[in-house]
């Protein structure tokens, strides 16, 4: 069988494209190299829905960010993904910062960002009382917001599958052959997959995929960003707080998450290794030093974890979204760094447009289902709903993760929907994301995974591959 289209990469871009393409009568397959979607940049980023003032006017980034931001409301409603339009502030401490803020404002106006204001320090502190009293001015963008990037990715993949897209995990694409008829033969995980069109959404590896068909028009370089995630009681910050940008990125920001935690980050370290997501002491020190400039009351004793993600920085300075130069039935969505998350819904639309331009036959399905529901979360139900949920499914009465109050029913449902590892369960349910970081619930989650997947405990992993959690049964492991 030949697919109409193969999408390479199960990050937020690949999954959003898959979802958008699932509106049409197509045989589509999503190929993900690892064991789950949202395993790269999409699981470790700032989770910000940017307003769109910090992209160069006229760039793809600018256009797709502003359009993506507008689309987020509908996408998050349809997919039941959390979105908070909490607004964002870029804060300044002196005249040089003010000049930058004015520049950002002008850029935002050109990009079509609605409702921005430049405010003085006092007004900024009214908007966000946790701000430092050293702040003298700020750019306020009420359309800035926060979402949950991995949940959006997972939701898009679930919705795409619901609408007929096939998902293959553990399917790394290692070769792409351009066929004489314009189609492609992809080698992935030892199998050959043929498709008329390919969408290259391979993130940090999108330049590799391009090169497989002889297109070396762009490179992607990893830029590491480290984060500190704090417990809910770390401080009471309700808005996304940026510092004025530097050459290396948007500065260290302090932001709430949709789950009520607070984070500080990211750092920005250019590197060559596309797997290295280490957190360094230097990074932690930098974050601590810089974040308190914005919010002096930030309590670092409430840090519950630190992590790092890699941004896929394109050599062209802009998103690479266009047909491949050497094989135009491959369409690139490469080098999607910030504001990639904010732009993802608009990138998906854009890609569909480009495929149509390359002659793809796109007929809308009569029965496209735009809605995807979140796993019903016990902790978010009313008492009556909780009682009803338990009556329907007693596993809603068994709390597995005590920090986040996640029940066995939610974990079983996450596995049914595709979680294969402890982290896969965590991203779908929040089990293990609380202050004890899985110390209490991870053995129980492993048990449930083992039972539901009918796999021995020795084969249960943290996140696929060789990330096994136990090495064997007691008394059967060889002495070291």
């Amino acid at each position, binding site marked *: 069988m030949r697919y109409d289209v193969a999408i390479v990469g199960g990050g937020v871009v690949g999954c959003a494209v898959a979802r958008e393409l699932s509106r049409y009568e197509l045989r589509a397959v999503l190929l993900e190299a690892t064991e789950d979607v949202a395993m790269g940049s999409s699981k470790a980023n700032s989770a910000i829905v940017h307003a769109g003032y910090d992209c160069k006017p006229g760039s793809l980034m600018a256009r797709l960010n502003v359009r993506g931001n507008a689309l987020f409301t509908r996408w998050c409603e349809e997919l039941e993904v959390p979105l908070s339009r909490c607004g964002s502030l870029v804060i300044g401490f002196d005249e040089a910062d003010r000049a930058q803020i004015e520049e950002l404002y002008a850029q935002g106006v050109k990009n079509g960002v609605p409702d921005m204001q430049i405010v003085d320090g006092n007004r900024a502190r009214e908007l966000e009382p946790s701000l430092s009293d050293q702040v003298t001015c700020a750019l306020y963008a009420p359309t800035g917001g926060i979402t949950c990037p991995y949940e959006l990715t997972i939701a898009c993949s679930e919705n795409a599958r619901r609408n007929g897209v096939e998902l293959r995990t553990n399917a790394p694409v290692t070769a792409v052959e351009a066929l004489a008829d314009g189609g492609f033969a992809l080698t992935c995980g030892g199998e050959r997959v043929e498709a008329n069109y390919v969408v290259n959404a391979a993130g940090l590896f999108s330049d590799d995929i391009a090169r497989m068909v002889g297109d070396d028009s762009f490179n992607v370089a990893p830029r590491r960003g480290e984060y*500190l*995630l704090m417990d809910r009681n770390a401080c009471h910050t309700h808005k996304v707080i940026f510092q004025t940008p530097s050459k290396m990125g948007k500065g260290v920001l302090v932001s709430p998450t949709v789950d009520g935690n607070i984070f500080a980050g990211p750092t920005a370290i250019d590197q060559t290794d596309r*797997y*290295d*997501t*280490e*957190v*360094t*002491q230097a*990074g*932690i020190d930098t974050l601590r030093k810089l974040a308190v400039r914005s919010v002096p009351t930030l309590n670092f004793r409430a*840090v*519950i*974890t*630190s*992590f790092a993600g890699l941004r896929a920085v394109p050599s062209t300075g802009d998103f690479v979204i266009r047909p491949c130069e050497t094989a135009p039935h491959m369409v690139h969505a490469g080098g999607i760094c910030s504001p990639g998350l904010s732009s993802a819904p608009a990138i998906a639309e854009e890609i569909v447009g480009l495929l149509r331009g390359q002659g793809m036959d796109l007929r809308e399905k009569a029965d496209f289902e735009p809605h995807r529901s979140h796993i019903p979360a016990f902790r978010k139900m009313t*008492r009556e709903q*909780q*009682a009803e949920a*338990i*009556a329907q499914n*007693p*596993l*809603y*009465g*068994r*709390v597995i993760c*005590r*920090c986040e*109050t996640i029940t*066995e029913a939610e974990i079983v449902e996450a596995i049914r929907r595709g979680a294969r590892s402890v982290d896969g369960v965590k991203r779908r349910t929040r089990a293990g994301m609380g*202050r*004890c*970081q*899985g*110390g*209490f619930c*991870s*053995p129980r989650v492993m*048990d449930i995974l083992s039972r539901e997947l009918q796999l021995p*405990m*020795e084969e249960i*992993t*943290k*996140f696929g*591959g*060789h*990330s*096994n*959690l*136990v*090495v*064997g*049964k*007691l*008394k059967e*492991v*060889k*002495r*070291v």
Partner: protein
Amino acid sequence: MNRKADVVVIGGGPAGLAAALQADAAGASVLVLERDKEPGGILQQCIHNGFGLHYFGEELTGPEYAGRFIDRVKQTGIEILTDTMVLEFTADRRVLAVSAEHGLLEIEAGAIVLAMGCRERTRGALSIPGTRPAGVFTAGCAQRLTNMEGYMPGRQVVILGSGDIGLIMARRMTWEGAKVMAVCELMPYSSGLNRNIVQCLVDNDIPLKFNHTVVRIHGRERVEAVTISEVDVKTKRPIPGTEETIPCDTLLLSVGLLPENELSIAAGVEMDSVTSGAVVDEERQTSIPGVFACGNVLHVHDLVDNVSHEAELAGRSAAAFAKHPAPAARAHRVIAEGGVRYAVPQMLSDKAEGKIDLYFRVGDVYRGAALLVKSGERTLLRRKKPIMTPGEMEKVTVDVTGLTDDVHLSIETEG
């Protein structure tokens, strides 16, 4: 389902069971809510011996110690609901719990005993740099996997923190065939018992490195090595040039315990920022009348025997309150100062009289120093102790009859 009980005990570990037994003995109807499949709490996974010397006058393992209490409970009318999680309790002593078997349970309690125990500090709380592979466990999590589930968490192990659970796991893993490469301790002393240092580490030739910490975790999927480094004794910062990378597949963390007080905080119980537990009076009553606390949720103990004694006091107090709900007024504070990190109880009520036990911990190692307990100009006690260490909880008994002032605990060093 709606229920009523004179005393509702949240947590069926050693504290909860001891409190329940005393409340029952005092004639109260008692309901224990336990989140695990069986009562006994963390003792069930502490299969080593060393429990009960003070309470039972003999050395028992954790499951045996728990088993004795469970046997006693079975001979009473105490009801234990297992697999039951408390979602909240309120200041008017209503408890909301949930279980697969009973669904939502709303319980009206005459008095509540908080006995939720504690949890372990994590890698995240320490911000240990490096990668985030599988193979980093808190010692208690590894202990559960090993002793309850029957699996080996790893083969080559480095342990950070020389708390008792870490030391015990060092021996456990060694005896199960793993190689424990080293135990690193940030401080210049161990918070574990000497006995465990000798019988777990020295017996098995496991090096204990004081003033050392883990500065980097290596490995993409599973831990491949950790880099340890000596730290400056004062600043606790790693000393450049002292790093050593140890190949291993597992890092166990035994870096401290934190009372698990989410429920208490949500209910508005006044907390002690040093113990991370409730502020209580001599009856173990918290700032909410009729709500009592005991065991590791109140302050982290090192001997379960002390937990049992404290819980019995709380259980008796709770039963008395359920019978005659007369809130005690707080009369005097018990203040820890001058080398004493904290003292429990933190308050004395207007009913306090006679001999009262004060539990406390010191902030440093003191040899040949004295503990001084004063109230105003009155010296209640001055006791010289050969040694006091942060790792060992201390107890003194003082007579508080006729106090007119707050009580102050401090360390008096010679010279």
